[in-house]
């Protein structure tokens, strides 16, 4: 029996063969990978998972990949630490707070999960070229994984962005295409290129497979908690894909018997300068009105999120909520996480922690509830967000007396 059945339209339910396609021909709804959960129930056990590699590929059976596990494109993404956050918990008033630390992925963000799956699938489909439009985490991750896979890689960016934004990609020698236009124009061009060239655009024609990689962050949280689901999980929202896949991952584990129950409320975290999903949730809407992003949390600043309405559904189905936070709150939260737990998160992580703080203050999350915050990228990627708000070094002469003088000032 095959564990992966088909691609299925999220809206009208039309089924398609497992090909590099992403939109339903009838209703233009997005396509989703369908599994045979009876087969998965037989195949996946806690013991088998525990014997797997210390990477996201330990959940191979629950990913849409046919190649043997040895052929998967693997830089070691996933199986990142789930750290009990005692000191941050104390500051926020939580006794059972955990941080899922995805800053420790090969290119320092959770994108390595989705890209690892996407590039593996692209190779399986026989593509020679992997491509994406991104200036950030996705481009870094794709360039690295394409290098490992020996594929040509094209990264599209607007021509006016600063060079240092793309160094983290250029080091892996992709073809960098600087497009004379803004983000929207680059976006439209990439969608056109994707339909004219037989290339694997990881988040366009490979998207149904790519996004499945996000489930592994949920699988890991459940496994690391001893195969139980937390009471709360806080997820930063950009396109909404991560949030819906976290929810899908939790439900899949329940369906195949890896966990007994789902007490989990999934909460969405956005920056106030780009909060279309939070706005829609708070107003009770079923559709998401696009906004023009204006926030320091650039990695999650998507004004017209493709999976926004599905994220809303997942929030409501799980009984979760949605909150947004200002840029100042984001910076404060980045610093709070760093000084209490030793984890330097990028701005998206600041959004998660600031929203967590807010939800505790609102009484949504109670003191003894098991809570997990997803920290999806490392702070080194957004140095400029915090650089100006950090304390300055103390300058002294190279004399013990001068040091002691400085020390006195510090302790008084």
């Amino acid at each position, binding site marked *: 029996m095959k564990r992966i059945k088909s691609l299925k339209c999220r*809206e009208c339910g039309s089924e398609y063969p497992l090909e590099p396609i*992403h*939109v339903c021909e*009838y*209703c*233009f*709804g997005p396509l989703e990978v369908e599994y045979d959960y009876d087969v998965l129930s037989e195949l996946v056990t806690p013991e088998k998972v525990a014997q797997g590699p210390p990477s996201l590929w330990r959940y191979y059976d629950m990913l849409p990949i046919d190649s043997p596990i040895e052929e998967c494109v693997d830089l070691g993404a996933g199986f990142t630490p789930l750290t009990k956050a005692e000191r941050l918990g104390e500051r926020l008033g939580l006794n059972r707070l955990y941080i899922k630390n995805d800053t420790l992925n090969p290119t320092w963000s959770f*994108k390595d999960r989705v890209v690892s799956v996407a590039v593996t699938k692209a190779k399986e489909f026989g593509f020679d070229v992997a491509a*994406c*439009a*991104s*200036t*950030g*985490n*996705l481009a870094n991750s794709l360039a690295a994984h394409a290098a490992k896979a020996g594929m040509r890689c094209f990264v599209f960016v607007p021509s006016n962005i600063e060079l240092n934004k793309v160094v983290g990609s250029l080091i892996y020698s992709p073809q960098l295409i600087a497009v004379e236009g803004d*983000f*929207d124009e*680059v*976006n*439209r061009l*990439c*969608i056109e290129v994707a339909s004219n060239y037989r290339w694997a*655009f990881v*988040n*366009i024609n490979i*998207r149904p497979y790519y996004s499945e990689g996000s489930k592994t962050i949920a699988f890991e949280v459940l496994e690391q908690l001893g195969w139980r689901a937390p009471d709360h999980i806080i997820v930063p929202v*950009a*396109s909404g894909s991560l949030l819906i896949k976290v929810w899908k991952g939790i439900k899949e584990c329940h369906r195949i018997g890896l966990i007994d129950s789902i007490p989990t409320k999934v909460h969405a975290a956005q920056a106030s300068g780009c909060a279309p999903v939070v706005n829609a949730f708070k107003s009770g*809407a*079923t*559709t998401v*009105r*696009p906004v023009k992003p204006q926030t320091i949390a650039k*990695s999650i600043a*998507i*004004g*017209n*999120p*493709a999976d926004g309405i599905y994220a809303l559904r997942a929030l409501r189905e799980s009984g979760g909520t949605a909150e947004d936070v200002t840029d100042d709150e984001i910076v404060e939260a980045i610093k709070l996480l760093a000084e209490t737990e030793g984890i330097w998160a990028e701005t998206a992580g600041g959004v998660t922690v600031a929203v967590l703080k807010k939800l505790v203050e609102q009484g949504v999350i109670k003191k003894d509830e098991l809570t997990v915050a997803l920290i999806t990228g490392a702070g080194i990627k957004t140095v400029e967000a915090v650089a100006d708000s950090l304390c300055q070094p103390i300058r002294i002469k190279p004399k013990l007396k001068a040091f002691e003088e400085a020390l006195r000032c510090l302790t008084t």
Partner: protein
Amino acid sequence: MAVHRYHLTFPKELVTEPIIYYLGKNFNVITNIRRANVDQDGGWVDLEIEGDEEEIERAIESLRQKGVGVDPIERQVIE
């Protein structure tokens, strides 16, 4: 003849206007709504447009001029 797929977003003030009707009337394009959700506060329409490339471009430009949000069906893929 080309066929393109778009996700249109309507602000509240455009909900009462027969915008897609005029698209077919003012330009030589065939429109086909595949999915939509519109209420008194605005909404969206997933639309297929068939016609010559240039005519489609003119039709799309007229939508943008009116204040309709026009995105590819995939929407924003830059992350």
